[in-house]
């Protein structure tokens, strides 16, 4: 529910909607939803602890890669540059103009979306913590666009997982409501911070968050 709430706030946020890459988001949604629907199979083959361990390792690797590429930008300042079929343009305050980006290695994005969807189904997490670094580092997607597109992606991915939880009575009304209200507040603060932060600082924040998540998981395993 909290994952969907993050996505819902993004759907209502105009700045986020301007950054969202609909074509890329919908394409990645295909494999992500397949990932959710096959999550039950993964749970049968691999133990939850093994999945958590894998997630912790992926988080550390993603953090290291993000730290090694902090200063690298995925955008060109030429607003007339060809963004290709999946790329796009947006106004960036940091650069003071319209910037263009191209999407590379779509197959990698599709693969990671499948894994993110699968993890979402098995562990109940959003998966954005994996898709955002991969889209940013390897697929050429700017940080803010990756975050907005991932917010769109995880919302629908979680919608695919929700009916099973709802029917089995695992969603407790007042607990979900309290958690969702917390997310609504946190997501708004996030949009506010994201609107004036430099891309470099956002990457640093993501890297630190990934390290913290993996440290927490390793401590529990």
């Amino acid at each position: 529910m909290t994952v969907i709430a993050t996505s819902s706030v993004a759907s209502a946020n105009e700045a986020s909607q301007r950054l969202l890459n609909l074509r890329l988001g919908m394409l990645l949604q295909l494999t992500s939803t397949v990932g959710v629907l096959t999550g039950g199979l993964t749970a049968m083959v691999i133990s939850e602890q093994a999945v958590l361990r894998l997630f912790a390792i992926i988080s550390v690797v993603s953090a290291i890669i993000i730290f090694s590429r902090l200063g690298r930008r995925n955008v060109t300042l030429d607003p007339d540059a060809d963004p290709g079929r999946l790329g796009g343009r947006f106004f960036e305050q940091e650069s003071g103009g319209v910037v263009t980006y191209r999407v590379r290695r779509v197959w990698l994005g599709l693969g990671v979306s499948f894994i993110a969807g699968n993890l979402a189904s098995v562990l109940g997490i959003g998966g954005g913590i994996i898709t955002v670094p991969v889209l940013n580092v390897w697929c050429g997607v700017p940080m803010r666009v990756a975050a907005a597109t991932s917010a769109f992606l995880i919302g629908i991915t979680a919608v695919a997982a929700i009916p099973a939880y709802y029917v089995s009575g695992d969603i407790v009304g007042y607990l979900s409501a309290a958690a969702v209200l917390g997310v609504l507040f946190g997501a708004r603060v996030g949009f506010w911070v994201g609107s004036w932060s430099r891309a470099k600082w956002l990457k640093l924040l993501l890297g630190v968050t990934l390290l913290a998540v993996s440290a927490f998981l390793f401590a529990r395993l």
Partner: protein
Amino acid sequence: MSKINDTNRFETIVSAVLRNGMSVATASLVIGLLFWMFGLFNVVSAGLLHAGLIIVVGMPTLRALLAFSRFLRAGEWSFVAITAGVFAMLVTSLVLAF
């Protein structure tokens, strides 16, 4: 790109729902939670909580519907097919759950 950002009547309505839906959901959740905390109107409280949660769940789906409409109007058939595929899987997950 420009065609994707044009809007028609359906899309204007959906955009308005997306803009205001979260305020309605937040109000519904806050009131429902307050009723629950003070043990008031149990049925109303449960109704408000679930209504708020259903709106929250519906928002990303509505956003995807908006995308479908825009792809359709722009004649981007490959993306129309992709979006239709995603919706088909969402329906599948709903059917599997029951």
